C-alpha cells in the first residue's frame, strides 16, 4: 500500500475554521418552527444547535445534535443535505442556505476531540433487547434503549461494528475513526456488541427469542446482485460494496494505471468510481442503461464524480464480460439503448440492434443496487414482500409481535430513504415503540 494512495483517502474537507463557523452560525436567522428541522428525518433542533455555536456553548450544541441523532457525526458528513435540511433553509431564496452539515460537523468534531460524556442511562429496568446488525439503524435503536434502561446486546456478523458507515461509505467522505467513535459512545452506555456473530449461522433466532424480551432486525441489505451475463466470474469483476470495503481496509495497487468500468448509476456506483480514481485507475467509466435524468445518484454526487474525472456512458447495456486466456477481464461488451415513450413515466427502453460495442477495461465493478436479505428473513420467519420485511406503519413491528425491523432492511415499501439519517430515525422509532409497548403492558415497573 502506498502513501500517496493513503493521502487520496483522507477526508476531502478539513472542516470549518472557528472563524468560518462563527460567521456562518451568526448568519442563521434562528427561525421559529423552521423548515430545516422539518426536513431533517431525525428532527435535530437546527437553530438551537447553531445558536449555541454562535454563543460558544459547544457542549450544548453537540448535545442538541447527538440527542436527536445518535450518528450525528456521520450524518454531518454523508447526509444529502441539499435534499434535506439545507434544501429547506429559508435563506435559499434570499442568499444561500446555511451550511448546516458543516456546522453539525464542527460541533460534533468538538465533541469527539473533547470527549465529554453527554448522556447517562436510566437505572436498569431488567428487560433485555437483542439487535441484529450494528449499522446506523441498530446503533440508534441501541442508544435509545440503553438510555431508557434496557439491557441491549447487538449481534454483528462483521468483524467491526458500524455497518455500511464503517465498511460501505468511502473513507474520504466518512473516515472510519468517526464511526468507531460513534460505536464507542453507544458502548459507553453499557451496550454489548458481539461482533463476528452472524444470526442464522453462529446464533439462531430461536436462541434470541428464548433469551430476550424483544428483537430488532437492522441487518440492512445484502450484496450487489449478479448481472446474469456471460463472463461474470472472470478475475477482475467486483461487487462494488466489497470493492469499497477493501479500499477501507488497505489501499491495494491493483488499480494503478488500470482502466475500470462501473455498472449502475446510484450513489454506490459513484462511490465505487471515485474510489477507483483514488486507487490510481487511469480511466474510469460509468455505464448506465438509461440517461443522466433517471440516474438515482444525487446531483452533488454526480458533480463530485465528474470533478474526479469519471466519464459517463449513458444508454448502454452491458451484454458480456470479455476475458483473456488467463481468465482476466479485458473488456465489456455493451449495446446501445433507445429510450422512447418518455411521457409515460420512465419510458420504454429498447436495444438498438447491431449497435454492440466493446469497452476495453481491466476491471468491471457491479453497482446495480443491493440484494434483499431473503435467507435471513426466511430464517427469522417474517412476512415480507419480495424480500422487504412487512412492518406496521408506526410501530415498525413485524409479523412476529416480538420482532421489530428498521433501516435498509425495510426500505422499498414506502419507508423512508435508504440513507443513514433515515435508518437512524427508524432505529429511534423502533426503540420507542418497544418501550411504549412494554410500558403499556406494564411489563416494566
Amino acid at each position, binding site marked *: 500500500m502506498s502513501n500517496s494512495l493513503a493521502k487520496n483517502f483522507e477526508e476531502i474537507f478539513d472542516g470549518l475554521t472557528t472563524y468560518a463557523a462563527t460567521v456562518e452560525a451568526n448568519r442563521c436567522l434562528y427561525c421559529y418552527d423552521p423548515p430545516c428541522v422539518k426536513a431533517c428525518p431525525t428532527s435535530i433542533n437546527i437553530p*438551537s444547535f447553531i445558536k449555541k455555536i454562535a*454563543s460558544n456553548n459547544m457542549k*450544548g450544541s453537540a448535545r442538541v445534535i447527538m440527542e436527536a441523532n445518535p450518528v450525528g457525526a456521520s450524518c454531518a458528513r454523508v447526509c444529502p443535505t441539499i435534499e434535506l435540511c439545507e434544501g429547506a433553509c429559508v435563506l435559499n431564496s434570499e442568499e444561500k442556505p446555511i451550511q448546516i452539515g458543516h456546522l453539525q460537523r464542527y460541533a460534533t468534531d468538538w465533541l469527539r476531540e473533547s470527549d465529554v460524556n453527554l448522556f447517562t442511562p436510566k437505572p436498569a429496568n431488567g428487560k433485555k433487547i437483542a439487535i441484529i446488525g450494528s449499522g446506523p439503524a441498530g446503533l440508534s435503536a441501541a442508544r435509545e434503549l440503553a438510555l431508557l434502561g434496557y439491557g441491549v446486546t447487538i449481534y454483528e456478523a462483521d468483524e467491526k461494528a458500524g455497518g455500511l458507515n464503517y465498511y460501505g461509505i468511502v473513507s474520504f467522505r466518512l473516515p472510519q475513526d468517526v464511526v468507531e467513535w460513534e460505536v464507542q459512545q453507544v458502548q459507553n452506555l453499557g451496550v454489548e456488541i458481539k461482533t463476528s456473530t452472524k444470526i442464522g449461522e453462529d446464533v439462531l433466532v430461536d436462541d434470541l427469542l428464548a433469551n430476550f424480551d424483544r428483537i430488532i432486525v437492522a441487518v440492512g441489505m445484502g450484496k450487489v446482485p449478479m448481472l446474469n451475463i456471460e463472463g461474470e466470474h472472470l478475475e477482475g469483476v467486483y461487487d462494488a460494496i466489497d470493492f469499497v470495503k477493501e479500499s477501507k481496509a488497505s489501499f491495494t495497487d491493483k488499480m494503478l494505471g488500470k482502466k475500470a468500468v462501473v455498472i449502475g448509476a446510484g450513489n454506490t456506483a459513484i462511490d465505487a468510481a471515485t474510489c477507483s480514481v483514488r486507487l490510481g485507475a487511469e480511466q474510469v467509466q460509468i455505464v448506465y442503461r438509461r440517461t443522466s435524468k433517471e440516474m438515482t445518484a444525487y446531483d452533488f454526487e454526480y458533480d463530485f464524480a465528474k470533478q474526479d474525472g469519471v466519464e459517463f456512458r449513458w444508454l448502454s447495456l452491458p451484454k458480456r464480460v470479455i476475458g483473456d486466456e488467463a481468465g482476466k477481464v479485458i473488456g465489456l461488451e455493451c449495446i446501445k439503448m433507445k429510450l422512447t415513450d418518455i411521457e409515460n413515466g420512465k419510458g420504454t427502453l429498447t436495444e438498438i440492434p447491431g449497435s454492440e460495442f466493446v469497452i476495453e477495461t481491466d476491471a468491471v465493478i457491479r453497482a446495480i443496487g443491493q440484494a434483499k436479505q431473503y435467507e435471513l428473513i426466511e430464517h427469522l420467519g417474517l412476512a415480507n414482500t419480495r424480500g422487504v420485511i412487512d412492518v406496521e406503519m408506526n410501530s415498525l413491528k413485524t409479523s412476529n409481535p416480538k420482532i421489530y425491523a428498521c433501516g435498509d432492511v425495510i426500505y422499498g415499501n414506502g419507508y423512508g430513504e435508504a440513507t443513514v439519517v433515515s435508518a437512524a430515525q427508524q432505529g429511534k422509532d423502533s426503540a420507542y415503540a418497544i418501550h411504549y409497548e412494554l410500558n403499556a403492558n406494564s411489563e416494566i415497573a
Partner: protein
Amino acid sequence: MADLSINFAGIKSPNPFWLASAPPTNSGYQVQRAFEAGWGGAVWKTLGDPILNVSSRFAAVSFNGQKVAGFNNIELITDRPLEVNLKEIYETKKRFPNHAIIASLMVEPKAEKWHEIVKKVQDVGVDGFELNFGCPHGMAERGMGAASGQVPDLVEKQTYWAKEYAQVPVIVKLTPNITDITVTAEAAIRGGADAISMINTINSLAGVDLNSWNTIPHVGNKGAHGGYCGPAVKPIALNMVGECARNPYINVPISGIGGISNWQDAAEFILMGSTSVQVCTAAMHHGFSIVEDMIDGLSNYLDDKGLASVMDLVGKTVPKYSDWGDLDLNYKVVAEINNDVCINCNKCHIACEDTSHQCIDLYTEDGRPMLKVREEDCVGCNLCSIVCPAEGAITMKELVHTQPPMTWNERQSLISGFAANSSSIAR
C-alpha cells in the same frame, strides 16, 4: 450541574434570567409563555395611570447587514387597564408560584400616588416592585420616569414613599441619562431601596430617512426622541453596573440590564456584580426560546469553572475594576504577528500606520509577503489585534517588567512627597 437559582434581595428565582419590563411582559399570556420557555422571572410592563400610545413606535439600527444592533422605541408604560393587569398577575403567580414576578411601577412624584399603587398591586401577590425612574420619553415630559429619575432628591423621596407601604423588596430602576449613575443609586439607597436595576433606555434617534427626510421612526411625519437599547448599549450598561458594584456606599443587589443577548453577555454582567439579569431586545428579536441556551450555556460554563452555584460567580470581576489612576504604568504588552496564520489583508498595518504608532512593517521573504511589529515602537494599544480578521494571527504579548509596578496615583504621591521633602530640606 450547577445550581442556577438565585436569591435577589429576598426575591427567589429558579435562574437569574428575567424579562425586563417592556412589551414581552405586557400580559399574562406572554409572561406564562415565557415561564414555560424557561425564564426565571419577569418584570411586568410598567403599571401606572392610563396612557395612550402612538403608532409607529419602534426602529432599529442595522450594522453592516446585522439586524438590530441597536433598538429604539417611543412606547410608553402599559396601555392596559390596571385591573386587567392585576388579574393576570394574580393568575400567572398562581400558575407559577416559584417564578419571580416583579411589578414595575410609575406614578407622579406624590406620596399618596405611590402609596395607592403599591397597596393595590401588593394585594395580588407580587414578589417585588421595580420603580421605573428611567423611561426617557413621553412619561418624562409629565415629570415621571427619567425626569424624576435624574433628580437624586426625587429618587430618594419616591423610593421612601414606596417603601412606606411595600412589604416585598423594592428595586429602583435607574436611568442612564445622567452623568454619574452612582449618585442616583446612592439616593435610592438613602430612600431605602432593597436593590437597584440598570439601565433603562438611552435618549436616542434611530435615524433619518434620506428620501422623505422623516425621522425614524415617525408618527405621521413627525418624530420625537426615543430610548435606545439592544446589543449596542451593552458596554454602557456594563460600566454603570460595574461603577455601582464597586462603590462602597452601594451595598444592595444589582439587576443588570442592557444589550444582554446570550449567556455570555449575562455571565459578564454577573461577573461585574449583577445577581440577576434582565432582557428585552434579544427576546423581541428572537422570541422567548433564547433562554434555553442562556440556561444551558451558563450552566455548562459554571460546570467548566467548577462552581456549584451561580451565586459564586456574582461580582468576581468587581475587585479588578478600578480607576485609571490605579493602573500600573510599568505594565507593558506588545503586538506579535504569526505570519503562518496571517492572511495578508494588511489591515493591521494600515490601522497602525494611519491611526496609531507606525510600527508594523511590511516586507517580503522568499517572495512571500510578511509583517513584523517593531516592538520598541509598539505602545501596546491593541488596535491591530482588534482589526485583524484571522484568529490567532496577532497576540498581545506581555513583556516582563523592567521596572517595579507603579500607578499614576503612587507616582503623584511620590512626586509630592519629593516636593514636600525638598521643600522641608530647603526650609
